[in-house]
């Protein structure tokens, strides 16, 4: 937390190497396809992830059609239904959210926000995207493989994932899924190392760690966590691939399948669950922490007020990141693991609620005595607080081991995790796109379309997932192709399911409006200028918008203050850019 004394910061010394033409791309291919510019890579990541997101959206429509109107759509049989939910889940968690936050926003924002010209390893950065792209192709290919994609559920629990009772278990589906995940992890590792090293080594003069915007802190912490968490999934995938393809028994005990005794023995299905969730729980925060960071900056900028309790926000991010590695087995309370684990994992899980709650308080306290501009990005940020709070609080039910017993594996869980790591982070993604689109394109997204998109998405998502908790509370299990006759489920529950489906179709449809807005505003949007939101952080201070390769023209910026000098008393404007020298000190941080 050392602060660079204002007086001692001189202009950056001349670069050791001249800016030679060689660095810059010369052909269309090196500029737009095999580009080494983090900003182009960011756009490639984002467009690919958004495309996968559209596929996942259609899959969610299909599964909701079956749940809302069972038996009406005959082309959705049980096999197809399980394939849809599996692909929807895996696509959203890994190929959309992780890729978009880290590969998309990470690539675009880290170099610009810390005042670097690019990522530290641009070539590896390019490879990272193309390997990710390959992983997506392999995943999508499984739709066309014999037997179709795997229907094992996104958690891929063995033994069922590799047996014949599950779609794709004895066909190509599960193999392609595992290979795709392995390829994804290889690609991500290249990107993740880049993000971490760039934050640690590539910052501009004066950009101390405790002056970084929370967006960078969130993405940095998440990347670091992902580098530690993904290897567990990688190992699990390798072992399961061996079990499936080579007949090993890492996860396979003695099994009699449909009357046939299999030639397997001694493996442990629980071992896979531990590996999976050792990845899977940090993964929740790998998605959440970038969202936390971004939303902090959106709220601060649009409330024209410094983020409240910046240092606490940073420590809370780090605490959540560290704690998230010791809570994984709360996904396994009813898995048949040693029940005494329950005491430990319930305690760690509920402790993690404390730093998380602090973050929520500080977002809300940033609004307190602010000057709130309800721009579209701000609307999404506010909606994030509502949905994240809701989903976080239901997490206290599921984390508290004994309360989890009746709720586990029911629709309550589905509602909880969609609210907390589906809806909430996606609202942040939308907010962030509305916020940074002007920097990427030089034009504003259309406001009216944005507001329609916002209200339908936010209210619709709340109407979908809030009542869904009560289906789970009643006992309706998740991952049921059809509820059928259940003595304790009243007719009204089926009506509720139909209602949820209709709302889901509408919310899905309005996303097409958003996609339209993205393309339409590219040409017809209002010109934005370099800093339309009058924000302090460095990415808004580039000499050109959109920033060219190398970002800063001749001279990289020097940083004189923290990222949150909004409405400083006595200042001429209600914001002071980080690279503006002057005596208006960064009051809050000077005692760091």
């Amino acid at each position, binding site marked *: 937390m050392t602060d660079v004394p204002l007086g001692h910061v001189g202009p950056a010394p001349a670069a050791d190497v001249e800016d030679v033409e060689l660095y810059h791309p010369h052909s269309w291919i090196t500029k737009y396809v095999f580009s080494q510019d983090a900003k182009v890579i960011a756009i490639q990541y984002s467009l690919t992830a958004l495309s996968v997101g559209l596929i996942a959206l259609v899959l969610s429509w299909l599964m909701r059609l079956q749940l809302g109107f069972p038996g009406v759509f005959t082309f959705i049989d*049980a096999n197809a239904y*399980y394939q849809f939910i599996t692909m929807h889940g895996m696509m959203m968690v890994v190929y959309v959210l992780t890729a978009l936050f880290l590969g998309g926003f990470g690539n675009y924002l880290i170099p610009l926000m810390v005042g670097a010209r690019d990522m530290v390893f641009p070539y590896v950065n390019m490879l990272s995207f193309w390997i990710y792209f390959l992983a997506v192709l392999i995943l999508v290919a499984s739709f066309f493989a014999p037997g179709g994609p795997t229907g094992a559920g996104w958690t891929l629990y063995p033994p*069922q994932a590799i047996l014949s*009772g599950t779609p794709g*278990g004895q066909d190509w589906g599960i193999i392609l899924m595992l290979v795709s995940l392995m390829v994804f992890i290889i690609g991500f590792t290249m990107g993740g190392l880049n993000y971490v090293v760039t934050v640690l080594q590539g910052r501009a003069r004066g950009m101390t760690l405790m002056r970084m915007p929370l967006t960078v802190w969130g993405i940095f912490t998440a990347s670091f966590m992902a580098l530690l968490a993904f290897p567990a999934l990688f190992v699990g995938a390798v072992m399961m691939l061996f079990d499936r393809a080579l007949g090993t028994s890492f996860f396979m005990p*003695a099994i*009699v399948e*449909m009357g046939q*005794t299999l030639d397997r*023995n*001694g493996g*442990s*299905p629980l071992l896979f669950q531990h590996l999976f969730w050792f990845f899977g729980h940090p993964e929740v925060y790998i998605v959440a922490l970038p969202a936390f960071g971004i939303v902090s900056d959106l709220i601060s900028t649009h409330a024209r007020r410094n983020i*409240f*309790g910046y240092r*606490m926000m940073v420590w809370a991010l780090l605490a959540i990141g560290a704690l998230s590695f010791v809570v994984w087995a709360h996904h396994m309370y*009813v898995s*048949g693991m040693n*029940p005494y684990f329950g*005491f430990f994992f*319930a*305690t760690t899980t*509920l402790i993690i609620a*404390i730093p998380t709650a*602090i973050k929520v308080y500080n977002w*809300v*306290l940033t*609004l307190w*005595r*602010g*000057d*709130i*501009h*309800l721009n579209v990005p701000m*609307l999404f940020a*506010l909606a994030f607080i*509502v949905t994240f*709070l809701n989903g976080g*609080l239901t997490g*206290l*039910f599921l984390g*508290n*081991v*004994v*309360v989890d*017993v009746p709720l586990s*594996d*029911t629709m309550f869980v589905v509602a909880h995790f969609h609210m907390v790591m589906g809806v909430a982070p996606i609202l942040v993604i939308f907010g962030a796109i509305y916020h940074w689109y002007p920097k990427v394109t030089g034009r504003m997204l259309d406001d009216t379309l944005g507001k329609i998109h916002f209200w339908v998405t936010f209210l619709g998502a*709340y109407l979908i997932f*809030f009542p869904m908790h*009560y289906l789970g509370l*009643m006992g309706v*299990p998740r*991952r*049921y192709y059809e509820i*059928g006759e259940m003595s304790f489920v009243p007719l009204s529950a089926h009506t*509720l399911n139909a209602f949820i489906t209709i709302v889901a179709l509408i919310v899905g449809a309005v996303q097409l409006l958003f996609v339209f807005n993205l393309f339409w505003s590219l040409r017809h949007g209002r010109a934005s200028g370099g800093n339309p939101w009058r924000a302090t952080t460095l990415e808004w201070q580039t000499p050109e918008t959109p920033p060219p390769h190398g970002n800063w023209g001749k001279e990289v910026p020097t940083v004189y203050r923290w990222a949150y000098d909004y409405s400083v*008393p006595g200042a001429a404007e209600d914001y002071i850019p980080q690279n503006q020298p002057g005596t208006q000190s960064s*009051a*809050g941080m000077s005692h760091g």
Partner: protein
Amino acid sequence: MAVALILVVIALGSVVFHLLSPWWWTPIASNWSYIDTTIVITFWITGAVFVAIILFMAYCIYRFRHQPGRQAHYEPESKRLELWLTVVTGVGVAAMLAPGLFVWRQFITVPQDATDIEILGQQWQWSFRLPGPDGKLGITDTRLVSPDNPLGISKEDPNGQDDVIVEGGELRLPVDKPVKALLRSVDVIHNFYVPEMRAKMDLVPGQVSYIWFTPTRTGTFEILCAELCGVGHPQMRGSVVVQEQSEYQAWLEGQASRSFARLAPAAQ
């Protein structure tokens, strides 16, 4: 203004929905009413926090909305306020965790007088095994499973000779007697779930897990599989029939003589 109003509607609407919705848990039929109590405590605490924070947000959005001439207050942090909030949150969390862990200890501590029964899952049906007159279950091995020995019971073990086997049918239990269900699977992971019993635990191939409960009222309750086990997952149903002690005993004796004949060494 509209935004603040909608947030108020969301906060209050959620509470109204909670109170008025027809969808609530099934009437309990086991000793685990403690779990329900813990859920109710959790609802109160989290509900209060939810409403308080959303209403505060709505107030801020209304009160501090942008107007000409407004300037935000510059205050980077308040250690005092942050400390207070942390402490209050800690207390709230402890208030939920403590009863939770207390009940969990009961949940995993099987009483001495519980009767062992076995529940076996396979794609996609339930089977059950009850101890015969000797009150003991015989040992099993998945590798012994065959068409005439679907549960893989070892014929060497005398304890298993009189075990009562129920395939793909109903699990009968006497009311007010604690049972310890030993859970076993021969193929993939399943989950024994009876909503009215608040009971749920995975059946994992290669190991034996357990769950215990005391049925507290007679009746028939549905058994669902709650762990995805392949395409037949939603069809994997069964039922628990809780009977008066005398009725149960009469049924059990009828069954015991039948299985005895089937599994006796002479019949091999």
